[in-house]
């Protein structure tokens, strides 16, 4: 058995190795800007919510209908009960069929659907219930360079508050990973209303557990955007489009560390915060 001192020495050596390859800037500056933007957005949101509430109360009071149509707002904000999941997906701007280099590998796609169902249930400690793998829709899946396999996945699940709430998730693995080895990366987007998440999302990450910038990739899901570019230092280039509203590409080390993604929405540039 190793002595305590030997273990502590090795801990110190490992810690020293990782910090030698880590720089505080520009990462800290970016985090400060991100925090400021979040605060501005939150404050604007609160102010806007106040205005909306005031307007709704005013209109309802004027029309005398505040208590006559209690479910109206809810009905309008959720997908139509008669819409199929497929049409809801397409209406939100996602492709109807799976895209990417693995799109035709039906066996792998079916395995991934099973993987997503079991993994998400496990990760939520059972609080999410995906009725069947058919509630899972693989928007795109494929290989990037010779190191990364990705998938963008939507699914509907029941939770404590809502039935059939839509979720959007990104999955990554090593090149040629079995579906069983794909891991969710970049969190889980879900809307309060249950609608499909359509907010732009940018994930720049690696598929391994010690950050190796030479294997970094970017995934951008923005169903309502027309184009996506990444800029870092002096470079600025378009990202590879996998499907309308979806861009997946490898990135350079500089882009991995400091890249900023800009979308074009209704012809205007919109900068999107990295996840």
């Amino acid at each position, binding site marked *: *058995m*190793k*002595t*305590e001192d*030997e*273990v*502590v020495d*090795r*801990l*110190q*050596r*490992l*810690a*020293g*190795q*990782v*910090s*030698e*390859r*880590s*720089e*505080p*800037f520009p*990462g*800290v500056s*970016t*985090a*400060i800007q*991100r*925090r400021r933007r979040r605060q501005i957005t939150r404050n604007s949101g609160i102010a806007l919510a106040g205005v909306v509430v005031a307007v709704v109360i005013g209109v309802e009071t004027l029309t005398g209908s505040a208590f006559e149509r209690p479910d109206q707002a809810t009905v309008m904000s959720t997908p139509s009960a008669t819409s199929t999941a497929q049409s809801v997906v397409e209406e939100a701007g996602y492709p109807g069929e799976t895209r990417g280099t693995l799109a035709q590998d039906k066996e792998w796609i079916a395995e991934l659907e099973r993987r997503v169902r079991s*993994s998400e249930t496990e*990760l939520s400690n059972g609080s999410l219930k995906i009725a069947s793998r058919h509630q899972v829709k693989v928007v795109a899946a494929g290989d990037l360079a010779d190191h990364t396999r990705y998938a963008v996945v939507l699914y509907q699940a029941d939770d404590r508050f809502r039935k059939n709430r839509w979720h959007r998730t990104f999955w990554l693995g*090593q090149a040629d990973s079995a579906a069983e*080895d794909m*891991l*969710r*990366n*970049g*969190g*889980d987007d879900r809307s309060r209303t249950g609608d499909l998440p359509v907010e732009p999302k940018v994930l720049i*990450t*690696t598929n*391994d*557990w*010690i*950050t*190796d*910038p*030479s*294997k970094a990739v970017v995934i951008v899901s923005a169903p309502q955007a027309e184009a996506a570019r990444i800029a870092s230092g002096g470079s600025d280039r378009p990202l590879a489009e996998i499907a309308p509203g979806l861009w997946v590409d490898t990135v350079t*080390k500089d882009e991995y560390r400091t890249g900023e993604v800009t979308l074009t929405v209704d012809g205007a540039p919109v900068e999107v915060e990295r996840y």
Partner: protein
Amino acid sequence: MDDDADFRQFVTARWPALVQSAYLITVDLGIAEDCVQEALARVHSRWGRLRNDNPEPYVRKAVVNAALSWRRKRRIREVSLDSAVHPAVELGSHQLGEIDYQLVAALRSLPPTMRAVVVLRYLEDRSEAETAQLLGCSTGAVKSAASRGMAKLRTALAATTEGAHR
């Protein structure tokens, strides 16, 4: 010195130690950097008040909290060493020594809170009382976790070394 220059100097001086601790708790450099960046961004927003006191305890607590809660926020699953391929560690203009994968694997076998206790007690050399205060638990819990954590690390490292020699 103005606030920004003062803050920048503080960040530059404390960054290596903060990243080291966050890395040993999360066992992922990217996540560790994220945790420290977010903690420092929080500190920056209160820098006017904190700079005149000692900002170190506040920063330490923010980093430990972030390192322990990243799972809840990001919900990324850890990858077992069995299924992970050792990445080529590219270090820019120079190569550092080989990463100690045995130790990484041994660390990953500990629960996150136990890792945090081991880091605070043995790497940062904090007292049981300080560690308990940082983690919001009793000194008894710290004592027990430190002792069990170190024993687990020693056993895991001994086992991997013996395995490698066979």
